[in-house]
């Protein structure tokens, strides 16, 4: 199992919509709106490394996502 934590910055109004879309992505274990440096925090749990990468790219496609920072499990 490969875990990762994605920190997502969204345009101000879009946070809720982004969260709804993110929750539908396969491999997303938990996602929530957050106070602080990131607007949405996504906790990912997948079989393979590559799956984390395509989750990141799926998140990028969501309208309203400005940037993401991925912290991927070290091994």
């Amino acid at each position, binding site marked *: 199992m490969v875990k990762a934590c994605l920190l997502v910055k969204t345009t101000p109004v879009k946070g809720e919509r982004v969260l709804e879309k993110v929750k539908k992505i396969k491999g997303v274990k938990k996602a929530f709106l957050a106070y602080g440096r990131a607007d949405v925090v996504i906790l990912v749990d997948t079989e393979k490394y590559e799956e984390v990468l395509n989750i990141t790219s799926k998140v990028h496609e969501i309208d309203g996502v400005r940037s993401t920072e991925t912290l*991927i499990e070290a091994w």
Partner: protein
Amino acid sequence: MVDACVLIRTERGKYRDVVGKVKRIKAVQDAYPVLGRYDVVVHVSAKDSKELGRTVMKVSRMVGVVFTETLVEVER
């Protein structure tokens, strides 16, 4: 339930015992070493914000932890 994600920078080479110790705390759902701007990610899930605060304080005061950043869930 209130969730939070605690991002930790540890002293060089200390991430393994930090992860070990953090995992023993009750409200900690998950903790694992990561690549990137931080060394360890901790997923905390507490029954209320008081327990969340206590847990975050415990984690940030641990031996080997140099810097933490906590992202707390917005309760709607």
